[in-house]
């Protein structure tokens, strides 16, 4: 055992820890030692590796991830676990925790990163992204790497963050061991193939740290129901919570989790398996003159076209890939031009205003069912920020869903998921769901003040937060900023907020309604009006949460916060921006925007 003390490798234990470890294993039989080695490895895996001290750069695979929804984390965890199982020293780190300075010491790196909104990195990756793309980034002559990009091709700058990293690491001298793989919402197959390819290369890239040993895994509390096996949750309530005169239809949906064993925390999301609007499916069949019963292939499955359009394929939001395919089918120059490089702005505008059906109607083409199906993405589950605290609502999960329905281009349009929940399931029906943890959106300690900014359905997680804090008897003060179109028709959960305020559970409540008066007032205006108090709360350690629209609101709120810090602290804008970044790093500025 004395070989353990060899200093040829840098030891992550201090002398005392090493002594304790040596005493603990002294006198064990070989079989017992084998078991203990597996036990310890299992402990590390169960921890996700995050709190384990980082293995030093050297003959180590570093698996980095940064994503908003947790999908990236799952992919990275699986990859790291399998590499470890094969006996490679593996270091799994979230980009939020990764020190950019370590980059120059890395020899083998995989990076799983999502793209957010119109080409932005996820919150966790923001600082790292900025560093790598900056002039401060070091030369990386020793580095070999592979990047997996996650994204949503209905946005124009699809997978931009992954592309940025992939290109930039090469510029800095890194050697690409796998080509960049870009995944759409139906990422599973592509991501799994990428991971397989990476794993297949490992024997040539890394020396095994030790010969692989069979090991026991520490028991992890794995839910029986997950993405591959969603839980059919009974709908307990489907209640419209905007008034009859509202321009919006927002639903409060209550689902039963009884018997599922599913657990969630305030801040988590619920993914919902949806069906497409049946009117839209019929419209496609009519428009294309296709036979509903014709068999088509989706993945490895053969099924009737109608069923494929109903439940397997994305037929609402258009994306670049589809436009490219349809440009070919229809021979429409307009479309071909749009998808040429350099037309990002026009493409973004087009994707914002056209669903797939609009493209099909506008640029006619005669194609087979199989070809049509081949041009479509798989239908992905849709995520909603959970609006309930499990402590306050045992065995239930609540969602706040804005039904997307609008007239455009001379026909009705629907959002697939929102109308599935609002229109096509009634109380007593069931909806297939699974939980998506969001560890980057969590309540702080009970005595910490919180400022919640959640206009529109962005208020959902804050309903969960307050319910949870009431249940826990938390003493920290709570301040909510809410906004919507009109006070009378769109004040989501108004009665609940008034009750919380009356009972002393909501210390401050500020609202902004954009269509009640001549000038439009939004939450960021209310933030500025309360600059001094917000800064005061921050000084007392408050955590700021933002949930809702990523396109405008999140940026406007972000700017308002920078202004507030600058003005109140008497700093310039750059300093204030830095301060806000520090707050974000410290987990005191958390966002769940979409």
């Amino acid at each position, binding site marked *: 055992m004395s070989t353990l003390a060899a200093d040829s490798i840098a030891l992550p234990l201090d002398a005392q820890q090493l002594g304790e470890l040596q005493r603990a294993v002294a006198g064990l039989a070989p079989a017992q030692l084998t078991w203990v080695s597996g036990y310890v490895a299992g402990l590390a895996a169960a921890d996700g590796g995050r709190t384990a001290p980082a293995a030093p750069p050297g003959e180590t695979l570093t698996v980095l991830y940064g994503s908003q929804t947790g999908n990236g984390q799952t992919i990275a965890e699986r990859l790291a676990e399998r590499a470890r199982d094969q006996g490679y020293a593996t270091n799994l780190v979230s980009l939020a925790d990764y020190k950019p300075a370590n980059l120059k010491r890395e020899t083998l790196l995989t990076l799983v990163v999502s793209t957010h909104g119109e080409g932005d990195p996820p919150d966790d990756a923001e600082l790292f992204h900025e560093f790598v793309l900056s002039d401060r980034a070091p030369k990386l002559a020793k580095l070999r790497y592979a990047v997996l990009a996650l994204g949503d091709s209905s946005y124009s700058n699809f997978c931009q963050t992954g592309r940025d990293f992939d290109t930039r690491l090469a510029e800095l001298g890194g050697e690409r061991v796998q080509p960049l793989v870009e995944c759409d919402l139906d990422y599973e197959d592509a991501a799994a193939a990428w991971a397989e390819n990476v794993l297949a290369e490992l024997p040539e890239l890394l020396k095994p740290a030790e010969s692989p040993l069979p090991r026991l895994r520490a028991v992890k509390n794995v839910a029986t129901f997950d993405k591959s096996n969603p839980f059919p949750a009974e709908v307990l309530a489907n*209640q*419209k*919570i*905007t*008034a*009859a005169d509202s321009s919006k239809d927002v639903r*409060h949906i209550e689902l039963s989790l009884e018997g599922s064993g599913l657990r969630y925390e305030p801040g988590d999301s619920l993914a919902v398996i949806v069906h497409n609007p049946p009117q839209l499916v019929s419209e496609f069949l009519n428009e294309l003159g296709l036979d509903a019963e014709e068999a088509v292939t989706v993945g490895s499955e053969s099924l009737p076209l109608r069923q494929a359009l109903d439940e397997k394929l994305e037929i609402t939001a258009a994306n670049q890939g589809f436009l490219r395919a349809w440009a070919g089918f229809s021979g429409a120059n307009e479309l071909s031009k749009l998808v040429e490089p350099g037309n990002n702005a026009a493409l973004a505008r087009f994707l914002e205003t056209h669903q797939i059906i609009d493209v099909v109607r506008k640029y006619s083409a005669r194609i087979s069912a199989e070809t049509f199906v081949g041009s479509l993405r798989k239908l992905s589950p849709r995520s909603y920020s959970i609006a309930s605290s499990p402590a306050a609502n045992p065995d239930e999960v609540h969602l706040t869903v804005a039904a997307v329905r609008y007239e455009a281009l001379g026909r009705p349009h629907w959002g697939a998921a929102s109308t599935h929940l609002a229109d096509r399931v009634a109380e007593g029906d069931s909806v297939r769901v699974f939980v998506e943890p969001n560890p980057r959106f969590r309540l702080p300690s009970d005595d910490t003040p919180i400022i919640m900014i959640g206009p529109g359905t962005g208020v959902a997680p804050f309903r969960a937060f307050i319910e949870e804090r009431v249940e826990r008897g938390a003493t920290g003060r709570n301040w909510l900023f809410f906004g919507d179109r009109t*006070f*009378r*028709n769109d*004040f*989501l*959960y*108004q*009665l*609940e*907020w*008034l009750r919380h*305020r009356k009972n002393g559970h909501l210390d401050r*409540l*500020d*609202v902004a309604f954009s269509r*009640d008066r001549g000038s439009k007032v939004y939450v960021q205006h209310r933030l500025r009006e309360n600059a001094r108090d917000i800064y005061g709360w921050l000084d007392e350690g408050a955590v700021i949460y933002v949930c809702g629209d990523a396109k405008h609101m999140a940026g406007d709120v972000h700017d308002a916060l920078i202004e507030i810090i600058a003005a109140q602290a008497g700093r310039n804008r750059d300093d204030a921006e830095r301060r806000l970044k520090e707050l974000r790093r410290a987990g005191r500025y958390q966002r769940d925007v979409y």
Partner: protein
Amino acid sequence: MSANGLSDVERIKAASRRLRGTLAKSLVDPVTGALAEDDTQLSKFHGIYQQDDRDVRSERKRQRLEPAYSFMIRARVPGGVLTPVQWLNMDRIANTYANGTVRLTTRQAIQLHGVIKWRLKETIAAINEGLMDTLAACGDVNRNVMAPPLPQLSALHREVHQHAEALSARLTPATRAYHEIWLDGKKLDSGAAEKEPIYGDTYLPRKFKSTFAIPPQNDVDVYSQDLGFIAISEAGRLAGFNVTVGGGMGMSHGEPDTYPRLADVLGFCAPGDVLEVAEAVVTTQRDFGDRGNRKHARLKYTIEDRGIAWFRDQVTARSGVVLQAPRPFRFVGNGDVYGWQQDDSGLWHYTLFVENGRVADAGGVDLLAGLRAIAGTHTGEFRLTPNQNLIISNVSDDARAPIDALLAEHGIGNTIRASALRLHSMACVGMPTCGLAMAESERYLPALVDRLERLVKANGLEAVPITIRMTGCPNGCARPYIAEIGLVGKGPGRYNLYLGAGFAGERLNSLHLENADEDDIVGALSPLLQDYASSRGDAERFGDFLVRTGVVREVRAGREFHAAARD
């Protein structure tokens, strides 16, 4: 009731710093369209009632939204007289801040409905800019002082109207709270409270209603009011007033200790004694009215409990006025006379039928637009009647034709040709805004009258006036207990049917049918109208006929109101 035996409203008044409460803060609370709970009591003293749209109340509760709160604002119009400019101002305010209609009340006031909290202050300010106000239009104070709009006797009307204005001014609360909160008046130092010489710290135990009357019309329903002054004219000049006290309509279903009561005639006073007598009546009620039970707090119960002789002594002692024996007078009816009438000075007056007091543009009758057009050219007055109608007053000979033309142009000219039953109908506001309503009232009575008109016509009674009044609750805003046919809401679509009041408001009616639906009501009235048509005496009124033939028992006093029904 609180621990010291006082009702909760007494606590709120006492703590309110002369009706200020936390109203100013309530108005700017951005997360609720309501006032703080205590402030909803105080706002009434400022002429403002918090209400909500009851049509959507339960739906909004399911939607996790608070009730659709809005406010009713009542402007005082002492004696019901206003200028065309004032009318135009109210019309503009109704269209800018309220629901686009103007509601004339049974107390000659003007109500606006549907004003949201964020616009209350602007609305009140606009009303005051038009030289009207809303202070003391509701609440535990003397409310809008009524006076007959009586067009025929111009000199007497003018004189009595001056008394009404003086009484209104005398009994207006002295608090500066109204000016501070609504008109950005200078604030008193906190803690300081201005003198409230008549009302004191806690104002009156309950609302207080006063009126003047000029026989032979009892259009003001003097007997239904806490305090009344019946003008006695001798040799063509005003000799003085018979003073009446202790009338009141309100009661509660199922609580026989509560009842409508007609006023007693206390005695006669000279014109110069009106203010002193009135103040003595008010302060006696202030000091002796029941402050523990708001359902037993009106002056009528004080007088029932302590006796009219005791009350007269109090008034004499406080005012120094020894009342003389009442002078003779006679009332012939409590309705309005419609159409053009000429007064003794030669000027013309047109009494317009405003069904249930609702001035709106609806159903081919553009009343609001028509009155706007008339007000634009009219140089006389508008007078509001106690029957929720409107008089275009003081029209010269040559101005008649243009007004007739405007009436015709807006579809208003023929409204006074409705059946006599409809012209003598009256309903309170009721659903959906009034928080007290148990059943429909204003929105329903016209349809019920449609049906009854067929009965009336079948019996050849379309020209015979019969008073019919409906309220959504037993509080009695439309004075249903002195209607020949009174209908008081019990629940959705259900009414108590009261019959047999005096046509001049001199006798209460009596319960005939309980919890009646429309078919029950029509079924009960059908044979009675038939009998009335075939066997009524010469000029015999429907109410008198029902009492004479024993259909209902004569109610001689309010305390017998429920007993009469049980016999």
